[in-house]
């Protein structure tokens, strides 16, 4: 579901903005967004709040589909020091970053992710994983 290049693990203590900046940078580094998208993600958090923290410990960060999105993509950051977003689903260990070119297009990766999130055992394993390869393997088995 996700390649090694699309996964990172961090031990840093990050606030919500910093976490969004990191996940946005990852989307930028894999070539799926321009840098503007990173600011868009942070701005949308400031204006709409932490609604994207969709389940206990799990965030699905994203911004509006616009010209700053190059292609549909999903990345994952595992935060060994959980992040506080000011949500009832805090603290957050898994931060997914999503970008889409339009709301119309069906994203297969969202379907994969929905199935993944159903599997509580797998989620726990990913939270506890210590290297990226391990996470990639867990996601491949899913």
């Amino acid at each position, binding site marked *: 579901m996700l390649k090694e290049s699309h996964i990172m693990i961090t031990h840093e203590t990050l606030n919500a903005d910093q976490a969004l900046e990191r996940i946005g940078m990852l989307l930028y580094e894999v070539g799926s967004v321009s840098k503007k998208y990173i600011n868009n993600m942070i701005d*949308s958090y400031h204006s*709409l*709040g*932490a*609604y*994207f923290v*969709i*389940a*206990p410990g*799990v965030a*699905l960060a*994203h*911004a*509006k*589909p616009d010209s700053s999105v190059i292609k549909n993509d999903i990345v994952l950051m595992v935060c060994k020091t959980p992040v506080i977003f000011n*949500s*009832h*689903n805090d603290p957050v260990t898994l931060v997914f970053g*999503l970008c*889409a070119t*339009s*709301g119309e297009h069906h*994203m297969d990766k*969202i*379907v994969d*992710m*929905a199935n993944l*999130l*159903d599997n509580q055992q797998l989620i726990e394993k990913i939270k506890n994983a210590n290297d990226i390869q391990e996470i990639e393997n867990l996601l491949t088995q899913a």
Partner: protein
Amino acid sequence: MRQIKAQAVCGFGVGSSTLLKMKLEQAFKANQIDASVFAGDVGTAASTECDVIFTSEELAETLKNRAKVPVIVIKSFVNKVEIEEKAMAFVKEFEKGGDV
């Protein structure tokens, strides 16, 4: 009973709403409820025609003031039990034809 039109809402109608839409579809299907679910964004959701809106706690407050249809808060978009219970509670009211 006619088909229920349900709207799953997030900030932009692309990420979490798509996920919620899928979960609602599964919940309705599991209970043999005739429903069509679509994803929407918080900016246009209140003026889009539907029977019910499902969204997160953070966005519900804004929507409740503007929407003419019931706004139902889902705390965890991956909690099948919560989604199914809340969806079916709405269906029950919808079948009665009363206000939810």
